[in-house]
């Protein structure tokens, strides 16, 4: 009905939305996992206070990602979501435990240990589920026509399990970076230690995934290793190595914010790497962004609301981070 192509804009909105989600909920899921390694109630209080004011705002982006995919790329939604039925269900249920733990832990002191475990395991399970989804997505789904024709357990492959474990280290690194930024003293030292451990895991995982992915798909292999792509794309792995080195230095030195910024850099580069591998497919091996898009009038209609809402989300998100800036202490909380 009109000559305007909204697909690039929606790709940008969805891509940015998912990236914000991964960064923001990534660091608070990571903090949730590190929480399980804190030695006493006091340090757990501090760690939880470090994310209590912002975690639920971070999950806004999950809603934007899901609904954006449904509305702007319904064909992709119709294939991906049934294919990832169980990881999505498990992730959401894990998040339920994790979410209520914030409140129940303070209100239900008799069962604090139970909710502590709920918070830790909820974070771990949600993270693994997200990593598994990513791996299964990159690997691709069995599709005939316009529907997913595999089974509910197709997602469970060695590659998906690798990405599931990889994301635990990835979110652990983000979480450690956040804790270095938000805490002091002994907890910060612990965060630096766990951060280095996570970074080592991330690097191993990055290498494994970078080798495995091109081996899985000839197309991805050609994208990265054919001439002149191999030259043009070489900044991605080189920058990754440099950022990883910088992050290690920041974790080992006195820097307060370096580790978190470095972790963001590593995620940005990995995200770019996935985008380079898959572009322009939204259902890998089957459908491009344009083939899976809803009609231009639908996309235009949705864009009106989204472009009003996004600045509002940015403003209140930024505001809440500003209000709760600075270091947290165990005896200080917003509850």
């Amino acid at each position, binding site marked *: 009905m009109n000559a305007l192509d909204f697909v690039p804009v929606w790709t940008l909105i969805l891509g940015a939305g998912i990236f914000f989600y991964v960064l923001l909920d990534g660091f608070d899921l990571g903090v949730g996992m590190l929480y399980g390694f804190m030695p006493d109630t006091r340090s757990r*209080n501090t760690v939880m*206070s470090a994310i209590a004011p912002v975690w639920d705002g971070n999950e806004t982006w999950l809603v934007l990602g899901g609904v954006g995919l449904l509305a702007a790329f319904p064909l992709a939604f*119709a294939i991906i*979501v*049934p*294919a990832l*039925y*169980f990881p999505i*269900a*498990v992730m959401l*249920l894990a998040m*339920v*435990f994790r979410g*209520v733990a914030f409140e*129940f832990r*303070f*209100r*239900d002191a008799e*069962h604090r240990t139970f909710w502590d475990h709920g918070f830790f395991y909820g974070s771990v399970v949600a993270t693994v589920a997200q990593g598994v989804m990513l791996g299964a997505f990159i690997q691709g789904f069995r599709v005939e026509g316009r*529907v*997913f*024709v*595999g*089974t*509910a357990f197709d997602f469970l492959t060695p590659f998906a399990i690798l990405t599931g474990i990889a994301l635990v280290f990835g979110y652990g690194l983000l979480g450690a970076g956040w804790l270095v930024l938000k805490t002091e003293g002994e907890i910060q030292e612990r965060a630096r230690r766990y951060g280095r451990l996570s970074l080592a895991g991330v690097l191993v995982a990055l290498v494994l995934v970078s080798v495995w992915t091109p081996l899985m798909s000839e197309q991805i292999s050609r994208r990265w290793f054919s001439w002149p792509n191999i030259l043009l794309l070489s900044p991605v792995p080189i920058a990754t190595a440099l950022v990883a080195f910088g992050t290690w230095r920041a974790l080992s030195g006195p820097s307060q914010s370096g580790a978190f910024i470095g972790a963001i850099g590593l995620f940005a580069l990995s995200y770019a790497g996935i985008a380079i591998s898959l572009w322009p497919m939204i259902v890998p091996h089957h459908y491009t962004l344009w083939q899976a898009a809803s009609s231009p009038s639908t996309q235009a209609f949705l864009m009106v609301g989204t472009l009003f809402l996004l600045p509002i989300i940015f403003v209140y998100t930024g505001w809440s981070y*500003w*209000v*709760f*800036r*600075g*270091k*947290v*202490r165990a*005896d*200080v*909380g*917003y*509850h």
Partner: protein
Amino acid sequence: MPLQIFLGDQHGLNTLEHQPAKLAAIEARWDTERRVPLTLLAIPDPANETNRFAIDVPLLGSLILTHSLDGEVKGLKDFKPEDRPPVAIPFFAFRIMVGIGLLMLALVAASWWLRYRGRLFDSPLFLRACVLMGPLGFVAVLAGWTTTEVGRQPWTVYGLMRTADSVSPSLTGAAALASLLAYMAVYLVIFPTGFYLMARLIRKGPAEATDAVAPIESGRSSAPVQVELHTEGKSL
């Protein structure tokens, strides 16, 4: 409450226009007629396409649904049997919702009367009724939701796509059952805990006001994490 009832009435007019089969099921109307009665209570009998033990108020059906005594209301017989929603579920769920709404209206009226008499805060009977009415709001919402979702059947996209056709092709019954059981298991832990904690908070009564507003440090109150601060923290 009166605003809610007005909105509900407007919603009803809208449903009559766009989803007439749902409205016919809600009111258990079988025949398309003018000057229809309002069936207060009955046992709908889909097999014989009639109502048993019906308590009807003449003309009120047309008046409420069309705002005219002579208004025509579509009956279920106008729709093919396979295009009709179940009748009993929306019929009773709607009556539960509206019944609770009328009880709430009665409570509002009672509160006006008590205020007029200057006894608004001293009547134990009224205060106890207010406590009971709290959870009924949830019941009303759930009943209304049931009404609208069952009443829209068998359509997902009204008139275009059936619910049976919109199920994910790859989704097996076993997978759906497994995920449903998982959700139930989680909520069986979460919901009773939440209920217990809320009940405990309520039993504790309103928090004592602390003597000073907690000092602020980098945007946070610096007082310890505790229940008493919750209400106060909001006003900081």
